[in-house]
């Protein structure tokens, strides 16, 4: 049973809003990291260049700069609660580790498309993030089942229900996340789903014509700009 945020009692709503803010920050940082990979996709897939200059330090610096440009403050600048700081640090460290571990792939000379795309980057970062926090917090990029490409991104029952009943509904305000507290194994857990929509840059792989094989070898979904593409799922244990 879902408890819409706007129907919560004042105290709970306050708590939910704070957690939602935390979720939004995590999602925003993930999007920025994914965007940096996307902006460097041509460089990463250039078979003529060996060292791409995209080591973990350079990558994190770019992410921080881009985040500041978009949100007015670097991810770890003052004003964060200890919890927010811990989660943000874990996320940045996850990104740094993923970039470090994939340097051989990124810098492989003579190899064009390497499969190191924003979606793969995000999945690796999210998995590392979950490991680092021992399941205390989780981030996952998911989508309606017909749009999921990797099984690891399959929505669970809660995500599936929100995607279908909320985000795919014509009445759902575009871009509005959904969050609620649910009982998981007897403890209250904050869950949040933030919808994502296809941008123009997504359509080379996810656009039309439907069924045509994209660069990754997957048939395109036939999506159009602005269509629901998926969602970032956040789970925070209280």
């Amino acid at each position, binding site marked *: 049973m879902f408890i819409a945020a706007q129907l919560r009692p004042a105290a709970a709503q306050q708590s939910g809003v704070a957690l939602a803010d935390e979720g939004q920050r995590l999602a925003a940082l993930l999007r920025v990291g994914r965007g940096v990979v996307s902006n460097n996709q041509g460089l990463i897939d250039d078979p003529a260049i060996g060292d791409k200059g995209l080591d973990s330090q350079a990558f994190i610096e770019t992410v921080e700069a881009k985040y500041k440009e978009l949100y007015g403050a670097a991810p770890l600048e003052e004003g964060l609660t200890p919890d927010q700081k811990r989660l943000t640090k874990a996320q940045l460290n996850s990104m740094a580790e993923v970039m470090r571990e994939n340097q051989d792939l990124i810098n492989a000379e003579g190899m064009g498309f390497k499969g190191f795309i924003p979606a793969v980057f995000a999945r690796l970062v999210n998995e590392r993030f979950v490991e680092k926090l021992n399941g205390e917090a989780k981030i996952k990029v998911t989508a309606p089942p017909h749009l999921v490409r990797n*099984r*690891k991104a*399959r929505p669970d029952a809660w995500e599936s229900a929100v995607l279908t009943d909320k985000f795919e509904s014509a009445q759902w305000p575009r871009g509005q996340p959904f969050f609620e507290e649910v009982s998981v194994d007897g403890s209250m857990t904050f869950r949040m789903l933030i919808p994502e929509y296809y941008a123009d840059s997504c359509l080379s792989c996810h656009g039309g014509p439907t069924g045509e094989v994209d660069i990754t070898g997957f048939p395109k979904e036939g999506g159009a700009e602005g269509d629901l593409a998926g969602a970032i799922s956040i789970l925070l244990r209280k």
Partner: protein
Amino acid sequence: MTPHSRRSIVSRFALNSITFRIGSLSALLLAALVVSTVVMAWDLRQNQIRVAQATARFHHLELAAEADREFGEMRYWLTDLSVSLLTLSERRATAARERLEAKLVDVETFAPDAAAQIRLGVDAYAEAALQAADAYTENRRVIGNTLSARARQASDVVDGVLNELISDLAKEANASEEAAADAARRSMLKAVAACVFILASGTYLTWRVLRSILVPLGGINRAISNLNAGAEQVTLPPEGPD
């Protein structure tokens, strides 16, 4: 036919007139033609049945081979799924399984036991393979490998049943084809032998009939020629019924 008319025919046969000799020859040849045509038509019909049986067996073999191919495809995509974790592989495995099931419905019509065994094996294989894929998805590699081994065993069972079915059907199809070819060969030899016999006996009988007509006619011609030449003593052939 009255006894009188039957006697009349018999007596006319006995008289051995030209009409009856030619008529009998024609009747005999026509009868030979009819009998040989009936025998050949019968043989052709039998051969047609054998060819149809051989074709049906080859069709069964083809269906079993297609089921084998679909199972191979399903296994390929489920194996690929364990490595790639891509939903595309899962979808293709599901599609291959659906096609396999459609083939098994056909296989069931001529090999129900094998189809049932294959179904059970496929169910066990798919269940273990998907559980393995789930385990790999959740980064539980050891249990994934264990489940993969279980899937492999189920797959071996399906392979065994399919291979045996295909082997049996191939033997049956080959035997059926050989039987049809043998029958066709026998029919051809029979037709050639009948043709030679009819030709030989027809030629002989025609020669006998013609001889029985032409020899006396030749005698009459000679007698007439001799009479015209002024001969007073000519020998005429004995008078016949004609």
